[in-house]
């Protein structure tokens, strides 16, 4: 027991696959084979809601209990996970941990053990610290699957996959694309997961565009080109992904002001013209209008921001059913 607890765990990328290379947990996009990412996207196609048409019932998770463990605030992500699980016929329990046990000093491990005892089958975890979902996957009972809904600055794999889904829907193939990710890459788990997904899917060029204060050390090693100038960074881009800029970045001397950031890196209609004429504009939300993106662009014809949200449900259904459904890699 002691040895087991203190031995280093397997790499997250290894841990999330079964011996026959199917998805057991979904902790990070990093290290997953391209075919598996494509399988997620293909499966998500089947779950996409067609307007004016009744959602096809797909009770693949009937009898399963999905627990949403949110140690950090989130509305959209939590709700889309909830809808996805319900559409698959699972029982969903939402736990806002900030207001319950964690604030009473219970350790993460104790919280997990207690929820296990309540017959959970899947934990959807959001946590402020990198590696939290990995930690839970390492220590929870073997029949439980863990789905990372965002851990610190590390990863947000379902967000990245819904973005890939949206890109594929609009652009078809990844190989010829230039994708620019703009803004606060330093603090962004979304950007990291997007980069892994885009490079795994053999995207032509992945760029990150930000001032030096918002670009983490050595990010080129992840297979991206770094631009500090917005005009150069989005030139000829097929996809422009804007990241959310949080207010506290001004207080920690990372940026002088929202105004200057918008002036230099904000996505305006004029700037968007530097990208390909049919470029799409994406944002993981929630958006800060007038800080990283102009309203006319956010609400404009090239924006696919709301489609991303809709696709989020299909992609989360796909991942959940791959982990927990019949012939899934996770618990049977």
């Amino acid at each position: 027991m002691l040895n087991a607890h203190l031995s280093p765990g397997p790499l997250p990328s290894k841990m999330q696959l079964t011996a026959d290379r199917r998805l057991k947990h979904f902790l990070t996009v990093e290290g997953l084979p391209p075919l598996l990412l494509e399988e997620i996207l293909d499966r998500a196609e089947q779950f996409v809601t067609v307007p004016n048409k009744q959602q096809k019932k797909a009770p693949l998770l009937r009898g399963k209990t999905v627990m949403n463990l949110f140690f950090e605030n989130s509305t959209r992500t939590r709700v889309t996970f909830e809808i996805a699980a319900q559409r698959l016929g699972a029982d969903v329990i939402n736990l806002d941990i900030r207001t319950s046990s964690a604030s009473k000093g219970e350790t993460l491990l104790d919280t997990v053990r207690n929820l296990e005892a309540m017959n959970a089958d899947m934990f959807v975890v959001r946590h402020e610290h990198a590696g939290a979902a990995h930690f839970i996957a390492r220590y929870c009972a073997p029949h439980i699957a863990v789905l990372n809904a965002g851990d610190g600055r590390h990863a947000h794999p379902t967000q990245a996959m819904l973005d890939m889904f949206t890109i594929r829907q609009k652009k078809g193939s990844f190989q010829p694309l230039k994708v620019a990710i703009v803004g606060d890459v330093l603090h962004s788990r979304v950007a990291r997961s997007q980069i892994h997904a885009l490079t795994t899917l053999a995207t032509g060029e992945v760029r990150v565009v930000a001032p030096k204060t918002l670009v983490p050390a050595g990010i080129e090693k992840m297979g991206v080109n770094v631009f500090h100038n917005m005009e150069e960074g989005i030139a000829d881009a097929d996809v422009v992904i804007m990241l959310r800029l949080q207010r506290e970045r001004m207080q920690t001397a990372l940026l002088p002001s929202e105004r200057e950031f918008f002036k230099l890196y904000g996505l305006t209609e004029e700037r968007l013209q530097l990208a390909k004429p049919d470029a799409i504009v994406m944002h993981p939300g929630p958006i800060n209008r007038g800080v990283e993106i102009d309203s006319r662009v956010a609400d404009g014809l090239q924006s696919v921001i709301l489609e991303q949200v809709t696709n989020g449900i299909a992609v989360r259904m796909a991942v959940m059913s791959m982990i927990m459904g019949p012939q899934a890699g996770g618990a049977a």
Partner: protein
Amino acid sequence: MSLLIRNARVLNPATGLDGLRNVLLDNGRISALAEASADFHTDKEINATGLWVFPGGVDLSAWLREPGLDHKATLRSETLAAAASGLTTLCYQPEPGANFDSAAQVKLIDEISRRAGYANVAVLGNLTQGMKGEQLSNMGSLKRAGCVAVTNGWQPFHSLQTLRRAMEYAATHELTVFVYPLEHALAAGGYMHEGEVSTRVGIPAIPSAAETVAVAQTLALASHTGAKVHFCRLSARLSVKLIRQAKESGLDITADVAAHQLFLTEMDVSDFNPLCHVMPPLRSARDQDALREGLADGTIDAICSDHQPHELDAKLAPFQQTAPGISGLETLLPLTLRLVEDGVLDLQAALRKITSNPAKIIGSDAGQISVGAPADLVLFDPDALWDLDISTMRSAGKNTPFAGWNFNGAVKHTLLAGKTVFSS
């Protein structure tokens, strides 16, 4: 009571002696060192044929936790672990919750560790009261009570002026100042080395500059005040370069490195392994190369364990929420000897880094095999092979990333002041 160690390969790193000798111990000290043919009349003898004898290790940093943090470890548990690992002198590394402002506290540590009887415990006293970095500690009294040096540990100073004054006052009492180079403003909120891996895993990071800025500042103050400064736990390439240059310019300084820094890098954190959460953080392979070079050319004088035993729960959390530190007593000697296998140091030089050099830094006459020196000795079987197994570790802290590593050579007996304190 006298004891003869017969026919051992004696390694005395202080002088470079390497040969078959008989070593005679009397009243806790080495009383004679003679060719293996010489004979003595003694109460007892150990036939050490096939064994090496070298001085007991002197570890410049062991967080011994008692009193105050006894749930992690006790002086008894940790000095026993030291004896079993060939270490006979431990410097008690103070920390918030277990530090030494008064002579009475220093005497208490001395008493508890003497009663346990497994290893000498040398106390590093506070440089500022309560390690708060504001007011000077009673360094005169601490010195008289037996403190071997003074330090503020990893705690910040209120201002550089405080550090400057503290260095001057320590110099007044001929106390060496152990400095942990860290610019807190640059490290704040960080948990691992800033670089490729921290970017990948998304853990807030500490740049190398957090250390090198502090090294540069402290060097300037050492030069200005004339204080004797010992730099603790170097981790960054540029730090080694700065220390090397300062030594070349004649500054009277010394430096150490933690053993784990010589074998682990930032890559070992890429799976969020909390056992590799340490301070300073594990840095890049380039930094590690520079540390090894610094050891080889003498820029870095000593290797220490920086032993930090923890209870199990301290490491059972997501990386950032775990307590930093490795339980390192039991791997100091084996890792140091591995540097010989790796071709970084020759055997004598390697032993020097954990015996005579650290002894000199704390002004001790231990760490050598010469007539009159304390009979703190290790009898070592160079042919034994073993694996580090957590279940047989003696330290109360099982938090080591080296579990499962195999090592060549094992401690057979450890003698403290001529008395056997460990036998395998």
